[in-house]
């Protein structure tokens, strides 16, 4: 058990150090950054904002990690968010009640995931192409549901998912933390994680060894769809409206980035959900940091790109090799 904890710490150490450095830098530029107050029955402050605003990317990163571990990729998650947000908003305004609304939106997410899984696992279409279909079509579907406008609602129950608080934390943060812990436990306390890695490393070999790779692949995409649905509900609930044009736009790229920053290889195989979640927090820290630092908006993307570049260069195999060489020679 102790050995396991030490191994985990060693695995996520680079991500933790990166996160700490970024937070320290923001704290240096903007001294009031770490102030946390208690107001309106919840904690209130920039670090809490990072946990709260990072929720969509963190949730997407959970599903994306599993998909990438199977050597796949899911480009459709942003569009699935838009679909599920639109379904949630239209169901609640149509008077279906909160439980049924949530069930319908989450169900739609799973259905989208199953569709992707079917294309990838049964028809054998390359994941990047298979999920591209839903990425393009999905936003159109969402726009059909909302009829192109922002579909607003005033249901306090649904809004609670996006802007309520539980145990002094914002609800979105509670959701991604609990989903993250649940999925991490599910894949690491059972053989599921190992089977996913096996399929990612060599699908044919694992099939021959008796792993039901087809079912596993479909399940993984379905989980990704479910995570995207939850993220979509949160985003819609947060602004009390489904914005089909903008909800989840380009978030699939942030989710992939979170997984990559988390050190999981796009070539499949070994993965770490916790590292991906820290990756998501790194991205959100950069976003929030840019906002509080008060730079002109023209610099936002350049600053973000430079930081991401720095992180990836530090993690690159070439630099790792150079470090080992340096240690040997000295």
């Amino acid at each position, binding site marked *: 058990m102790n050995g396991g904890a030490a191994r985990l710490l060693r695995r996520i150490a680079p991500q933790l150090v990166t996160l700490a450095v970024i937070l320290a830098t923001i704290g240096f530029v903007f001294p*009031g950054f770490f102030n946390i107050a208690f107001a309106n029955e919840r904690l209130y402050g920039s670090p809490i904002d990072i946990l709260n605003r990072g929720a969509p990317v963190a949730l997407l990163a959970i599903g994306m990690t599993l998909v990438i571990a199977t050597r796949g990729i899911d480009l459709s998650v942003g569009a699935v968010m838009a679909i599920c947000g639109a379904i949630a908003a239209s169901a609640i305004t149509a008077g279906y009640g909160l439980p049924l609304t949530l069930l319908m939106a989450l169900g739609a997410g799973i259905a989208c995931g199953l569709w992707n899984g079917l294309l990838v696992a049964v028809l054998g279409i390359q994941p990047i192409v298979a999920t591209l279909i839903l990425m393009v079509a999905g936003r159109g579907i969402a726009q059909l549901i909302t009829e*192109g406008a922002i579909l*607003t609602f005033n249901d306090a129950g649904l809004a609670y998912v996006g802007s309520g608080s539980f145990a002094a934390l914002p609800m979105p943060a509670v959701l991604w933390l609990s989903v993250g812990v649940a999925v991490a436990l599910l894949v690491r306390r059972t053989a599921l994680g190992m089977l996913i890695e096996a399929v990612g490393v060599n699908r044919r070999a694992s099939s021959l060894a008796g792993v039901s790779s087809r079912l596993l692949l479909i399940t993984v995409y379905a989980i990704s769809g479910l995570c995207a649905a939850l993220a979509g509900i949160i985003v819609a609930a947060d*602004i009390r409206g489904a914005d089909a*044009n903008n909800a989840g736009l380009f978030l699939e790229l942030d989710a992939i980035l979170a997984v990559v920053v988390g050190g999981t290889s796009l070539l499949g195989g070994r993965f770490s959900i916790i590292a991906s979640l820290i990756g998501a927090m790194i991205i959100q820290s950069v976003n929030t940091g840019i*906002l*509080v630092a008060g730079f002109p908006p023209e610099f936002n993307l350049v600053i973000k790109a430079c930081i991401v570049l720095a992180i990836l260069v530090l993690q690159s195999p070439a630099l790792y090799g150079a470090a080992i060489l340096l240690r040997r020679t000295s």
Partner: protein
Amino acid sequence: MIAKTLLGAGLLASMTLLSSAALAQTVGFSQIGSESGWRAAETTVTRQEAEKRGIDLKFADAQQKQENQIKAIRSFVAQGVDAILLAPVVATGWDAVLQEAKEAEIPVILLDRMVDSDKDLYLTAVGSDLVHEGEVAGKWLVDEVGDRECNVVELQGTTGSSPAIDRKKGFEQAIADASNIKIVRSQTGDFTRAKGKEVMESFLKAEGGDTICALYAHNDDMAVGAIQAIKEAGLKPGSDILVVSIDAVPDIFQAMAAGEANATVELTPNMAGPAFDALAKYQADGTEPPKFIQTESKLYTQADDPMKVYEEKKSQGY
């Protein structure tokens, strides 16, 4: 001789009369699509304005594609319509098709957006002045706060877009002489609700909610998102922090009715009304309209019965 001239003049006059009566009948309208609520409202209002004047409006939805708009204009020319309204999706690449319409002697009026073609190729353009919109918003704030010190936070539109640049410029011009008003933070909210809320949250933390006196948002959607952020921070939007924005979409009127927003500057969806008026004058006696007709940028405040305006706007298909 005199009789002949009179006869000729009479004939000519009756011909113009006849033709103007005939001319006002069919107008083709090539619309960009229905990407936003405002666009949908523009379509609805254009139909209403045409109906009011007894004009038969031929409507073509281009679904965001220039090639569809060019096709639509060619088919309008082939059908021999009396005038064409065009809301161009992009600014370039119109020369050839506008030339075709000109050769067929069909006047083209641009709605809402401009093109980079020679001014002779179209009759006139109807649109709003983005800088002026920003000025109206800024002037409202200057009048509202009087001599009070006022720190303003600004939610910009998508970085680099012309509404973001011009609405910022206009607002800054309007507050330039008021030394008590200054913009303390300005960041992009990408014209969306979600980003508007997120960025406002960071403003509130970075500046401290009680030091911010007003919010200026480049569109209403960002203001609606920011209003939620202000509420969640335990402050009262509309009184603790004044909220002024641009566009006049229905949802901001709901916020104004609830006292949570203070003012909005209308980007009117009625571009067709002035266009039809200019067209009628041109056809009646050949009066060339100016090359740019600026629509009114009307200011709405809480005093303007926001709930009534909300219902009106809703019925326009926002």
